């Protein structure tokens, strides 16, 4: 199997998994076959994984901040009610 066919074969399996919604499996499969890909493509894919991961992390922390903000507010109000009950 030449390089082109090799890449096409990995691509096909990966693509099928993604289209079936099995994204975790697709990621596992890809990381297991990375070394079979040409260096240029391999590096491109790893870079994409890293870039997207950092972007996702920032977006998630924003969401979590929102949860924390809302939680803090709820907490403060509960504290205030608690004080009133105790008075």
């Amino acid at each position, binding site marked *: 199997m030449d390089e082109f066919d090799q890449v096409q074969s990995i691509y096909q399996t990966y693509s099928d998994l993604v289209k079936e919604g099995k994204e975790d499996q697709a990621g596992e499969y890809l990381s297991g076959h*990375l070394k079979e890909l040409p260096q240029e493509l391999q590096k491109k894919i790893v870079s994409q994984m*890293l870039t997207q991961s*950092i972007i996702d992390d920032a977006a998630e922390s*924003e969401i*979590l901040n929102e949860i*924390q903000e809302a*939680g803090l507010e709820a907490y403060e109000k509960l504290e205030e009610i608690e004080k009133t009950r105790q008075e």
Partner: protein
Amino acid sequence: MPGEVATLPEGGDFILDESASASSAGYFEYAGHKFRSVNAEEYETLNKITANTALRKQFGPRRLSVLDQNSSAQDEKTKQKENPSINQQPVQESPEQQPTPEKTEPDLVPEPNTEPKDPENKHKEDKPPAIEKSVDPDKLRFIRDLGPGNRWKGFGTPRQGFYVDPDAPRNADGSMKRYSIEEYNKLKEQKKARVGELAGTKENKGYESFDKRDYVGVKVKTLRDVAKGPDAEYFGEMFNAIDKQSADILARAYQGDKLTEEEEKKLQYALHEYSKFAEKYEKIEKEIKFTHLELAGRRNPAIQRAIELNGPAETLKFWKQDLKHLAMTDRETFTFLYDAVKHTNKGMDTRRYKKFNENVLQVCKRAGISPEEYDAVFQLKRGDKKQSEKWLKLHLSKDLTGFAKIAGSLGVTHFKARSIMREAQRLQNVVDRKFNLVGSAVRDIHKEMGIVGRVMALSIGDPMKVAALRKAAMRNEAVQLARDGGPKNMSEMKSSYTNIEANVPNDAALKEMFERDKPKEWATWDQSRRERWRDHEWDPSELKQPDKEAVPKGLWAQILYSFTKWLIGSRKKKLSVA
């Protein structure tokens, strides 16, 4: 959907009522839920609950004044009266100039005789003061406004407070400039639009709207600067991303040929964009470190294995190289990354973290929960993944449901947070809105505090905990996909993935297309010019290779695109240009 609104209406008091119909007073739909104005009967009931003036002021429903005014929630005049006062303050007002707390709270249950508005003030309300474009909303700090004695003043409205810029020049009296929440949101929108323009998104008309004034502070390189060395390759990529015919324009520019006015404009735009993004890249190149690799590896075992394949040092090296290409060819994604790295490096807000951490420890103690319990449960080692997920499913759903319940009952949760927790709410089926806070005992309050604290405890620290929380909170497919800016449902997503797939023809078919499409000038071109045309400019429709802009967001789609690009590029390179 009829009645659906994109943004929440200002003023009035609305409750979530899934049985409401379009004929209900103040009816609207938001984020898939039905809302309507609080009716007079409900208002009366709430009044009874908080009949005591002091209690009512402290705990009573806010934003109900629309009913006191005996007008509908849609009434524009009423809306203006309902606007939070913080939004009516002049932008640069100092803290000392603030009105007394009672007067700053028009959304508390109002006094019967509301004074008519001063026409001048009304003007201010209609047209809020202009916000300086230069203010960066990400540098602003939120100050919670708890009023005199740092006492809380009630519930039922969104969070109160204002933003300040500690680094900006002060007011004449030494106070910091203030920005209301509304102004802060406007600044965020403005910045988003600017970033969009910067990144060359659809809002940006590219070179057509090119204006040198947008590049103040950027050391713009000349064509001579970029003609040699590594700059030449990267500038070529940038120009090609702006205009597919760039190679031809650039070749003539290098030769000193006269360009048309439009070509000159494109060239200048490319030089300015190149200079701007090269500077941004230099900044990010210094900031990206091994810690970012660790962070990404912890988030995803597949990434961890990919890093191990080449070793961290080599991985970091080629990632940085790729980022420079990204800065030139996909400015939108690069801008996202740029902001994300800044955000990640800034870390968690120290003040908030400290305060929050104390709260967590306190509530854990009160609720009889050991903080270590979380560490034990969330040791998501690979072998324990299944068990951990089982635990998460059980406990996170419970905690999120409890949190959504209490937050919903208090009416303090922002709608964004509500949408995040929709899945949790669904698990519970309906939020128990009969929860009677006023009649609850201290013990019950402690219990609810425990729920809040437990959810919050999950949102700090170990990235695995954070990822687990995110998965639980964001299990709602629609929310997740909308956040990614991608297709709105799974079938749309599958179809968009299919669209990325290239129809890679065999060698013979490709050669036939190649011969068919060769330009008239082919015979006069040298080998490098022919190769440039073959590799970068020739784009036959049969290949169906999508434009970068048409590729849906998200990692999997981006990787599919890279495969496609490699496969087509590989076949093309086999074609002889002799």
